[in-house]
């Protein structure tokens, strides 16, 4: 049931924004990968050179934070997905659609 989300169907119609252009996307990817690599390298260097001060033995591992970030992100992605599958009900589960609409109160709300 993962195809609930509307894949916005506009790339064929030429309605492409600045950040969606292929060249821009490539630049963003390179920037992300490069900064990941730099900070991982800095972390390893700092640990070897001895000016990093870990709190525990666990984060004495030079790339501990990188691993933690990736692992938690993976667990969270999967967990969130499972939770969504298990606990999401149709939007009229508690309230009927009529309950969600606002009666015009004449206050001139936008």
């Amino acid at each position, binding site marked *: 049931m*993962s195809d*609930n*989300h*509307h894949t*916005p*169907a*506009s*790339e064929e119609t030429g*309605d*492409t*924004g*600045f*950040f*969606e252009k292929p060249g821009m996307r490539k630049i963003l*990817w390179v920037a*992300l*990968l490069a*900064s*990941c690599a730099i*900070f*991982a390298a*800095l*972390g390893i260097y*700092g640990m070897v050179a001895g*000016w*990093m001060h870990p*709190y*525990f033995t*666990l*984060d004495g591992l030079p790339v501990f*934070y*990188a*691993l*933690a*970030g*990736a692992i*938690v*992100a993976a667990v*969270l*992605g999967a*967990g*969130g*997905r499972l*939770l*969504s*599958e298990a*606990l*999401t*009900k149709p*939007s009229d*589960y*508690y*309230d009927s659609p009529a*309950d*969600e*609409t*606002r*009666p015009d109160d004449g*206050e001139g*709300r936008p």
Partner: protein
Amino acid sequence: MSDLLAGLIQNPGMLLIVAGVIVALLPGRQLRAIAALAAIIGCYALLASYGTAPMDAPVLMGESTLFGLDLVSIRIDRLSVVFATLFFIAAGLNAIYGWLHASRMEASMGLIYAGAAIGGVLAGDLLTLFIFWELAALSSVFIVWGGGTHAAFKAGMRYLVIQVGSGMALMAGVALTVAATGETAFTAMSLTAEDGSLNIAALLIFIGFGVKAGFPLLHFWLPDAYPRASAVGAVMLSAFTTKMAIYALARGFPGEDILMLIGAVMAVAFIFFGAAASDLRRVLAYSLNSQLGFMVCGIGIGSELAINGAVAHAFASVIYKGMLFMAMGAVLTRAGTLRAAHLSGLYRAMPLTALVAFIGALTITGVPLFAGFVTKSMTISAAGYYEHMLVWLALIAATVGAVNNIGVRIFHDTFMGARSDAAKVSGDAPLPMLIAMALAAAICLVVGIQPTLLWSMLPFDYDYAAYTMDHLITQMQLILFAVLLFALARRFGLAARPRDGVLLDVDWLYRVPGRIALAGVVRGTAAAWHRLWWGIQAGVARLVKGLYDTHGPEGALARSWPVGFMALFTAVVLGLMLIVTFVAY
């Protein structure tokens, strides 16, 4: 009489409440907004004139008595002043944000609500705290109702019950404290009495605070009510209630060990709910709840650094979370929906709002140069220094959660990507909204770049260096690799948005089986009652009939009780009374 009133009137929060009443009477949105802003500035000037005082030597003002109990309307020390200042900033931003869009109700109740929160943090004793605690609950429910839909009415009712319930727990705890000690002072308490037994009074107060602080299982009102409010209302709601509870916990239960566990669970559990929710303001609500976990952890650790961290994080959290709610409110105002499934690529129509959301994401995830980095580091460091490894891990996980919930869900999925139909909106956020968001973003940056400005306001003097190579590298590693993983998952089609619909939470327990059970009990009792009554009536029909005949206009009687029944019932009660008398003695 007069000294109690005079004491209360010295409290800037109380003055703001009075101003809220006056604002309700003014015509025109602009005039109300100007009056509200003037009142906020005026009341802040009053607070500023009181100055500040160190934690161990608070300045007490407005002392009075209420039937023999000592009340202290104002306690000025660094903890109360920093929260009061924060609430004034939030109230000011709210007033600007709602310049064109706040209804009369929201403008005035928003001011009263802010005033109640300010009064609460300045209150020097438990009774005064309770007064403002209750006023905050009652004024904020109108803001939930301001959403205008029937769903908002129902959510508001649920919100009202749980908020007043929190007040009742607090009141019961205070009454017990007074009955036991005769003291009303609001100072640090402990859940365990000196002989090791449970301190019931403190526990009741703790539960009262916990409801408003969104403790797990007591949190369900928060994601239920906040997304129902109007664009303006949700911003107001996000600032005060929960942070007032954080203040109360920091004042009442610093170093209470159980808070570390509660905070860790909060920080971790709610990021999963945030990842699964489909309404964007509900995502924000869960994310807010997870951030509250940071503060609760800090209070639980209880060291000077940790308390400072909790307070600083509360400060930053009000600003950036308010900013994110503002951005979502702007989206709601323009696009008319906040269902994640319908929104993407909004940056092209609303570039400035997108920028604000981006700054919000950078702040909450803790990217250096933004407020979140300096405030989060304090709590994480405190957890590290005091060797609370589980807490420390939970806080790291919560940071990654913020990357997903805010960075990916709120910023990337909503504003970036190909443009959806709902995202083809008429323009960027209205000007006052933009101004408020810009001011909030500026505060995030200023605190991030110049943290000593905030640290000079914190409760304790603690020399803490946030910008060390260690922090920079570890924090960036954490964020960048999390982003990398989410990006890779998107790239290879492993991640999809959560399903569209309502996400069930523990409130399901009372909204579905609870309601069915209650209806069943009511129906069952009514049925049993009728059977009993008709049984009795059949037996004494002749007797009752005599009275029935004298019975006046018929027809409209359907719901009233026949007099014969009442007479019979009285006889039964008397009989019981007599039997008990004779049997008992």
